[in-house]
């Protein structure tokens, strides 16, 4: 039997790593909410943002810039790259496809994925680049209560904080500003949005820009955790079950879905793992997602889509 202290440690670690999945899932939700498109390229965008950041950072530091000013410049550069990407995607990929079927748009994002992955590695290089933005050591809490204390990674706490701020900011942006209102309007009905003069191309640019900036934030945390490398694109696969559980259209859903998966897979690994031979972490999320699909296909927080026939 696992000691209580160990259980708490696993739970906290799981919840915090779940928040990191949520960071990636958020980018998907944003684009899906505003254009009804499942953006396959989100993982590639995290890679691009990470590479742009780490490579410019290394260059600036090598040229004698103090670390923190280099970080700020590097972030600005990466943000500019994401803005350029958003503009190019709108102009050449989605723009010509207004009023097309969702599946067509989805296929076009698969194409964009390969281009983004290829170009970003061609321009910025394809090695593993370590990124040191956040502390990677750990705290040991409640050492008087539990033997050895409870281990909490500082990086995970940073990730949780950042995700919280990001979600609060996005919620305000979507619910309280007129641009947010226009975004929701475009997602609901292209023709009606056009009839009141909402410029769809501008809205799509804003959406992809925001998704790109979320990808950049995700890249700072994940890049610190794993190093910036190609395999970071596979995070997109981990975000999928998060989205299925939370619901494709819900920002809070992305967070809760991440928490459930993060905590679920760590606890399953610790408790079920020894019984059936371990390795549960790699597939647990997908089984959970499958179970949710059978009971509640729209996810926990998703909008139920009822079609009149």
């Amino acid at each position, binding site marked *: 039997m696992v000691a209580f202290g160990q259980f708490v440690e696993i739970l906290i670690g799981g919840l915090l790593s779940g928040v990191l999945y949520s960071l990636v899932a958020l980018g998907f939700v944003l684009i899906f909410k505003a254009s009804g498109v499942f953006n396959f390229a989100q993982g590639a965008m995290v890679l691009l943002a990470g590479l742009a950041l780490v490579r410019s950072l290394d260059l600036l530091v090598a040229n004698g810039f103090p670390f923190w000013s280099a970080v700020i410049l590097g972030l600005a550069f990466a943000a500019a790259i994401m803005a350029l990407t958003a503009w190019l995607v709108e102009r050449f990929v989605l723009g010509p496809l207004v009023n097309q079927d969702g599946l067509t748009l989805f296929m076009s994002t698969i194409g964009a994925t390969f281009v983004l992955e290829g170009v970003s590695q061609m321009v910025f290089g394809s090695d593993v680049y370590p990124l040191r933005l956040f502390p990677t050591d750990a705290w040991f809490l409640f050492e008087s209560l539990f033997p050895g204390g409870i281990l909490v990674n500082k990086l995970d706490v940073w990730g949780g904080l950042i995700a919280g701020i990001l979600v609060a900011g996005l919620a*305000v*942006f979507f619910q*309280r*500003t*007129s*641009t947010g*209102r*226009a975004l*929701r*309007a475009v*997602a*609901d*009905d292209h*023709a*009606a*949005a*056009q*009839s*009141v*003069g*909402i*410029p769809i191309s501008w809205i799509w640019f*804003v959406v992809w820009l925001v998704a790109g900036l979320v990808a950049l934030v995700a890249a700072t945390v994940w890049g610190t955790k794993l190093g910036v490398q190609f395999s970071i694109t596979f995070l997109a696969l981990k975000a999928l079950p998060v989205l299925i559980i939370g619901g494709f259209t819900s920002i809070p859903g992305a967070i809760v879905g991440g928490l459930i998966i993060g905590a679920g897979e760590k606890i399953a690994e610790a408790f079920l793992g020894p019984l059936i031979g371990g390795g549960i972490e790699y597939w647990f999320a997908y089984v959970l997602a499958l179970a949710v699909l059978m009971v509640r296909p729209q996810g926990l927080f998703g*909008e139920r889509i009822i079609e009149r026939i």
Partner: protein
Amino acid sequence: MRSPDVNDVLLKVEGVSLAFGGIKALTDVSFDVRKGEVRAIIGPNGAGKTSMLNVINGFYHPHHGSITFKGKTRARMRPYEASRGGIARTFQNVALFRGMSALDNIMAGRTLKMQYGLFWQALRFGPALREEIEHRCRVEEIIDFLEIEAIRKVPVARLPYGLQKRVELGRALAMEPDLLLLDEPMAGMNLEEKEDMSRFIIEVNDYYGTTIALIEHDMAVVMDLSNRVVVLDHGVKIADGTPDEVKRNQAVIDAYLGVAH
């Protein structure tokens, strides 16, 4: 009802033809809409009425012909130009932003009136906040006018059909349009709702002086509301005149009743 100045043409459609593949939706249709009038477009199902509205606000691009709006002649309108120029519309099957409240739907109609950009809005600070409040005041006036105070915070998908149509009219009015296109504003309504909607349309025309072009199937409504009527059948204009003239027109009677040709 005001009597529009005969010479003051707001919109003129000349020789418009539109086809989808081999199907001719509109063939050489010409008519005008005078400033301040209520202009009805009628015709049997499939006559091309909605296509005509779609051409006017730029959703469809005609293959021949031209559209003159406020003195500027174009071969085709674009949706953005139309809405900027002051053309608002409602849709046959209610095209509201379903996930949003009635209030947010109508606020969306103010989009073009807003000046301050993304940055200020994101901060919700200074001029953008003041602007939002100003627009909110205008929208509340419209909500009062349409008598939908009680439902302003309700997501529109949950409203009954008649109220949805009213919210959609509100969204169009929020644009403060010069030309308001109404695509079957009374379709699917009961008598009481129709009377309400007629009253709103007359008041909009009277009080705001908005020019209105509407498509409607209920002939009693059309005859009551409109100054002039244009009749389409199979994409061809078959009559144009006052309600009384149109009512007596043999071609119109034939089109509606069906005759052996």
